[in-house]
């Protein structure tokens, strides 16, 4: 062998097609710890680890046959003392003296091997982390969806509860509590912005006798029907509420005395003229309109007195609290 090739700074090896070692240079022999006579004429398997042998058959062999060259392949050689020596090899296949030869050069890659091992380990860790992350994100997404649907359920339920909490079960009108809150709000609004409002307290006349004569079922039916009528008569912003028993209330925002009287009279007339297909009823109404420095209880009291007066004066009529005061003075 050419002196330069024999001691070149890379291993050199030539094989025939059966894998017999035709030539091997001193550099590679040194690396493997073998003598020339131990390897020349022997099979390449002698210096390959079991994994490398299989790997060569799976990858190296088809590649060199089909492409006539192999570049940058990593395998590991086996030294005389059974030590694994990772190498990087290039190979080419060509005809020499009428025979096919497979020539290899190889360089040890001990440091690079460590380095690539570390890279591979990190890559595997990253891959498994990424997979874990993906899985966790999927789980979180699922949880988020569940949470959203639970939240929606809760919102719906809350809304239902909210409605139930402010609604009178029998008539479907607002209940006393809601009425009270709304009255407070209107009183405050009046103080702040001087927006007047009126309050109607309505009582079904002789309701006790309906209950006595026709039974409570009929009484309830009347309350329901009247509730519906009151609802129909009220505007969007009006608050129609069941005040208690057969007593109802209507808050009329932005309505002054004359407006309130008109609405009250309208309702009264409507009730009187309605054919209920039930015992006919009439209603008495007391009206009060807010004044500055008013309080909830004050306006309720005035409306209540006006209602009392309507009752006293023979029922089926409307009384405004301010007329009541004037008549008290004129009386």
């Amino acid at each position: 062998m050419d002196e330069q090739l024999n001691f070149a700074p890379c291993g050199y090896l030539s094989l025939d097609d059966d894998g017999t070692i035709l030539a091997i240079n001193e550099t590679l022999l040194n690396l493997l710890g073998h003598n020339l006579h131990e390897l020349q004429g022997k099979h390449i398997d002698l210096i390959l680890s079991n994994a490398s042998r299989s790997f060569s058959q799976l990858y190296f062999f088809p590649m060199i046959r089909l492409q006539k060259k192999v570049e940058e392949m990593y395998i590991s050689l086996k030294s005389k003392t059974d030590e694994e020596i990772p190498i990087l090899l290039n190979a080419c296949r060509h005809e020499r003296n009428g025979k096919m030869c497979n020539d290899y050069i190889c360089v040890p890659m001990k440091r690079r091997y460590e380095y690539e091992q570390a890279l591979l380990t990190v890559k595997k860790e990253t891959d498994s982390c990424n997979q874990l992350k993906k899985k966790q994100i999927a789980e979180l997404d699922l949880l988020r969806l569940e949470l959203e649907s639970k939240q929606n359920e809760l919102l719906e339920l809350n809304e239902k509860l909210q409605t139930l909490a402010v609604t009178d079960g029998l008539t479907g009108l607002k209940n006393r509590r809601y009425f009270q809150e709304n009255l407070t709000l209107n009183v405050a609004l009046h103080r702040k912005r001087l927006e007047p409002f009126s309050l109607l307290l309505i009582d079904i006349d002789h309701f006790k006798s309906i209950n006595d004569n026709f039974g409570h079922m009929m009484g309830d039916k009347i309350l329901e029907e009247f509730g519906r009528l009151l609802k129909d008569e009220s505007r969007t912003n009006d608050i129609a509420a069941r005040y208690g028993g057969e007593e109802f209330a209507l808050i009329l925002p932005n309505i002054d005395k004359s407006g309130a009287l008109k609405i009250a009279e309208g309702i009264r007339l409507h009730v009187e003229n309605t054919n209920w297909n039930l015992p006919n009823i009439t209603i008495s109404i007391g009206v009060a309109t807010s004044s500055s420095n008013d309080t909830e209880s004050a306006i309720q009291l005035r409306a209540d007195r006006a209602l009392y007066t309507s009752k006293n004066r023979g029922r089926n009529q409307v009384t405004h609290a301010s007329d009541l005061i004037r008549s008290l003075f004129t009386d």
Partner: protein
Amino acid sequence: MDQNILFRNNVNITGKGSKAILFAPGFGCDQNMWRMVAPFFEEHFRVILFDYVGSGKSDYNAYSPSKYSDLKGYAQDVLDICDALNLKEAVFVGHSVGGIIGMLASIQEPDRFEHLIMIGPSPCYLNDPPNYSGGFVKGELEALIEMMEMNYIGWANYLSQVIMKNPDRPELSQELEESFCSTDPTVARDFAIATFFSDHREDLKMVTVPSLILQCSNDSIAPIEVGEYMHRTLSESTFSLMKATGHCPHMSHPEETIRLISDYLTTSYAGCISNG
């Protein structure tokens, strides 16, 4: 004919005959492997070549880690191809794990196959002492898989995909694209695990299609004991020990490979004729 399947597995059909002969590559390689053997059969057969999903020019989008974590996934693809081409009583030639894949397919649908020709097959690579010697201990198989991972062969396609996004260096992509055995690294790893850690010894007993085992001398992947074990266990099998060494006789010794396959087929067809 289902064009999707033919596209998915990069199915290529040549030859003048009517009887189909299917060539299945071994682990991690594509149909190029057969280029020294397959053309010989074109005179009398309809020659069908294909790539596994995840290697060669197959449709990589069709890859599913769960389906292909088991050789049965690959066997299903063979059956899909048979179905797409309406094959009956075809000759199946499989190299290495390709032989096992064909064998699994034949258990599912025996009518599709007339003969199984397996080159260097192994039903189980791991030793199972004391009664079975597959040729490998666990550590050796792990070292083999690690070696695949460390080599850029397995990375070639991955890299080519990365480089393809880099228009400044189109020549690199071209070179890698054409490189032999280019397989996606994840696919290669899954396939390696499905291949080398599988145990199909029990399946051997369920094979009814007649088979030929071509056993190489000095094959470190499928040692002679493994070939003999297969011959003992497979009913109606013929065993042929080749002069060829190594694991790829269809590339190293194409003439001997062709001769043994055609002798086997000629004998069995002659048998058919004389019986008929």
